[in-house]
């Protein structure tokens, strides 16, 4: 296969789409005849009416699942998982399925534009030549230290390119951020892992092999790290077969998340006491095992923990016994448990439980995901604290030009960090956003990147796979709009800018850059395929949707003295005034950026079945005490802001906790997202845990009635799901 892919010459077969929606009968389109535009030149592997399948990588989140996209006559029709991709093994989540609604979204940025005034809608279309010149000028006319890149979480080829650029030219290293990473408390997890296991990386929890899983807030069935991989793990854990019994799963969490709903036991702990509970279980488990008391757990008083956490001592003892007596127990820290002021201690305590269970590096235990090819270490996205520093630099006028790609900080960052305000002090903001999101509205220029399904690339899988994975991406359809790959833009601009920039990126186009990067794998043994030369390698790389080792490459954490160090789980601090702890969580169906995809909006939330909106979950007993009913709009007041959201009486949440999903509340981002729901990021104050992650679950808020009502669209019946119909059949 040559590098000049004729696929890139695909034509949009507009007529075919029209024909699809042609007459049913009756009042259909005026004519039954529709003109059909035929190929100018039919690709030799293509047949009319036959589908062509392309392997690529999902970029709806940073998990790097492999996708196979079915296309027909230049249109992408259906997304499915790549069958043997080590991250997802042929499976996809809802957000991956709906990627096509991003590709064919009616609100994409169609051309490179210059914004008349920041924050306004008015733009003028400029050609790509002028756009590249703008980027080149921005690179050339500013000091390297005045140039900053803000990028999405995915460790992909663009990140490598900008990193290379930064290394050679001295511009600021790219900063990667994503709201998902913040809600996952990735920094806390990797810091804790460094403290306990001596390696700053995201540990991999092999649920599939575990008999007992204790999850402390980790919502791994929803959005956490690599949800498809962890759902597979969960499924394997639950599935009994002749070699193993059905695994038992306990979730410690103040609110029953979708993950907790699947747990065999949900333990509604007081927010911020998860770490203490972990320590207590460790102590009781050590006692149950009859081993000498590890120092890590020695200092905790289980009875005191029971009082503080709201978990009965008997329950703690029973669970500890279960943990101690299981051949393969696993403890997972994550989610809101780490988004507390004491999150780091909590993470350490939970990770240490694994050391007690002696599962490190074993099947059903904790290991480190193998490092990706092309890379020797885990690149952690920025923590919220680091983002705060970045924004302070912006506000201080340190950056003359800011490039934004793959992230929507104006929406995803807490309003209290005031990204929008700080951006006023940045001379020039250039967004490469595919969609007209809030950040693109703040940018002077929007040079739209292709949609991920129209792009080349590769991406490393940070976690979730047993093997070392470099997931490959290729365009499955030709670009639908007048967009251009950001890598191509940067390469062309670098050449125009000359100097260090030109020498740093001596590539003709994105494709050559990728070839150059993956060429180190050509001779690599133990992979999915081996190729004698680069063109063959690239061909296989595209055919399989990436390159990965055939053997699992888990790294066993070395924790010789994990049990023998003190763990300090301090008292959780709550910012703000009020009677409720606010627990924001990422909407399992929308994720951080799904709000512009109509089918994701229409999916029922797995726990509440609400569609198309934001709600606040309140325990019915508490709500009735406050005189609140379903659909009553309440005002939530935190120290950082306030938000008006309709109430959902959620039977499985602690009475002292309220919860709001994150993902809605856009002010821009297309017709399906804008003006819909509310964004809890508005409520978050700049409070961090010891690792620098935001303490998003460490807020106290007040509730005020507004007297208004807003009807929440629910899939569930409003009269039949609480056992009115004598429950269900079984």
């Amino acid at each position, binding site marked *: 296969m040559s590098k000049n892919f004729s696929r890139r010459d695909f034509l949009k077969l507009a007529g075919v789409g029209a024909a699809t929606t042609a007459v049913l009968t009756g009042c259909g389109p005026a004519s039954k*005849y529709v*003109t059909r535009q*035929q190929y100018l030149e039919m690709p030799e592997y293509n047949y009319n009416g036959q589908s062509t399948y392309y392997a690529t990588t999902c970029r709806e989140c940073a998990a790097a699942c492999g996708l196979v996209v079915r296309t027909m006559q230049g249109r992408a029709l259906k997304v499915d998982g790549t069958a043997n991709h080590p991250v997802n093994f042929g499976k996809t989540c809802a957000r991956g399925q709906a990627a096509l609604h991003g590709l064919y979204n009616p609100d994409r940025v169609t051309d490179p534009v210059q914004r008349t005034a920041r924050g306004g809608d008015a733009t003028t279309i400029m050609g790509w030549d002028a756009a590249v010149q703008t980027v080149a000028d921005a690179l050339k006319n500013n000091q390297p230290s005045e140039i900053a890149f803000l990028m999405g979480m995915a460790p992909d080829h663009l990140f490598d390119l900008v990193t290379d650029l930064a290394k050679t030219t001295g511009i600021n290293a790219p900063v990667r951020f994503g709201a998902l990473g913040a809600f996952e408390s990735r920094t806390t997890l990797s810091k804790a892992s460094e403290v306990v296991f001596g390696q700053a990386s995201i540990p991999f929890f092999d649920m599939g092999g575990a008999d007992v899983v204790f999850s402390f807030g980790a919502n791994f069935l929803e959005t956490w790290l690599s949800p498809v991989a962890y759902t597979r793990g969960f499924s394997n854990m639950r599935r009994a077969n002749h070699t193993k019994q059905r695994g038992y799963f306990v979730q410690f969490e103040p609110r029953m998340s979708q993950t907790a709903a699947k747990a065999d036991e949900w333990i509604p702990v007081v927010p911020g006491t998860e770490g203490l509970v972990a320590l207590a279980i460790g102590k009781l488990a050590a006692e149950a095992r009859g081993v000498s008391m590890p120092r890590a757990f020695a200092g905790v008083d289980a009875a005191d923990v029971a009082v503080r956490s709201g978990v009965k001592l008997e329950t703690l003892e029973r669970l500890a016994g279960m943990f101690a007596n299981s051949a393969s127990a696993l403890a997972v820290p994550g989610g809101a448990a780490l988004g507390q002021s004491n999150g780091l201690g909590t993470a350490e305590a939970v990770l240490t439980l694994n050391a007690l269970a002696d599962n490190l590096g074993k099947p059903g235990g904790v290991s480190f995901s193998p490092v990706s090819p092309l890379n020797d270490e885990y690149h952690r996205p920025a923590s919220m604290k680091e983002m705060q520093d970045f924004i302070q630099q912006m506000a201080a006028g340190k950056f003359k030009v800011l490039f934004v790609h793959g992230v929507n900080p104006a929406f995803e960052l807490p309003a209290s960090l005031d990204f929008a305000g700080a951006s006023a002090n940045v001379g020039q903001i250039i967004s490469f956003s595919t969609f007209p999101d809030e950040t693109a509205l703040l940018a002077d220029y929007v040079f739209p990147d292709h949609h991920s399904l129209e792009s080349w690339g590769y991406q490393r899988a940070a976690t979730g796979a047993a093997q070392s994975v470099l997931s490959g991406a290729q365009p499955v359809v030709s670009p639908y709009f007048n967009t251009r790959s950001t890598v191509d833009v940067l390469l062309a601009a670098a050449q125009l800018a000359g100097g260090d920039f030109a020498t740093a990126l001596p590539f003709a186009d994105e494709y050559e850059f990728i070839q150059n990067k993956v060429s180190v794998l050509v001779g690599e043994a133990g992979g999915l395929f081996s190729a004698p030369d680069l063109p063959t390698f690239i061909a296989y790389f595209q055919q399989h949707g990436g390159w990965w080792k055939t053997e699992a490459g888990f790294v066993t954490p070395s924790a010789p003295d994990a049990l023998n160090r003190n763990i300090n789980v301090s008292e959780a601090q709550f910012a703000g005034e009020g009677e409720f702890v606010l627990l924001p969580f990422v909407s399992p169906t929308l994720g951080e950026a799904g709000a512009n995809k109509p089918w994701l909006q229409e999916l029922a939330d797995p726990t509440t079945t609400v569609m198309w909106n934001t709600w606040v979950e309140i325990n019915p007993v508490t709500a009735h005490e406050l005189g609140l009913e379903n659909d009553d709009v309440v005002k939530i007041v935190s120290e950082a802001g306030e938000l008006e959201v309709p109430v959902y009486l959620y039977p499985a949440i602690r009475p002292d906790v309220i919860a709001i999903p994150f993902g809605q509340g856009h002010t821009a981002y297309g017709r399906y997202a804008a003006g819909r729901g509310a964004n809890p990021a508005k409520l978050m104050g700049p409070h961090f845990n010891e690792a620098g992650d935001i303490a998003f679950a460490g807020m106290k808020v007040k509730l005020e009635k507004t007297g208004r009502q807003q009807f929440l669209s629910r899939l569930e019946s409003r009269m039949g799901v609480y056992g009115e119909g004598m429950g269900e059949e079984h």
Partner: protein
Amino acid sequence: MIKRIFDWLRQPLGLVAVGIAFLALFSLAAYGIYYTQQPPAQPIQFPHKTHVAFGIQCLYCHPGAERGPSPGLPSTAKCWACHQQIAKTQTSLLLAPLVESVRTGVPVQWVPVAQVPDFVQYNHRPHIAAGLNCEDCHGDLTKMTIYENPQVMNMGWCLNCHKEKSAGNPELETKLLDCGTCHY
């Protein structure tokens, strides 16, 4: 009041007015139906008979028929493969759209004529595999310039053949007369 209108309408003039109004409505409706059923003009008055006379097989230009649902229309490149060697192509008025398409890279907009409605899932492959020839459904192309359907392609026509072919074979009957074979 009503009586006066009735009376007026019973006059010769009134009757003529009623007649004209009725005719106008009727012809409008008839024209509307006729109009929506007319195929738009083909960009090129493609002489099928000439090409068939040269011995070009149907599947040369419509190869998809052997493999799947749609036989496909030839790409500009396919036309051009032969036509660039024919001197007349450059001068012929008839072929101007093809030359234009090659020059500008804008594909020729053909009008598919043998269409089934959207709710019919038709697949050429099994029909060809069952031994049907193109002309069995599409008529004698040696006599046609622009293709025209030799018969109305409606469900009764489909069914007739399906019934005929499956008669006496219960298994085939089940398959060929099943609603789900074509409608889903």
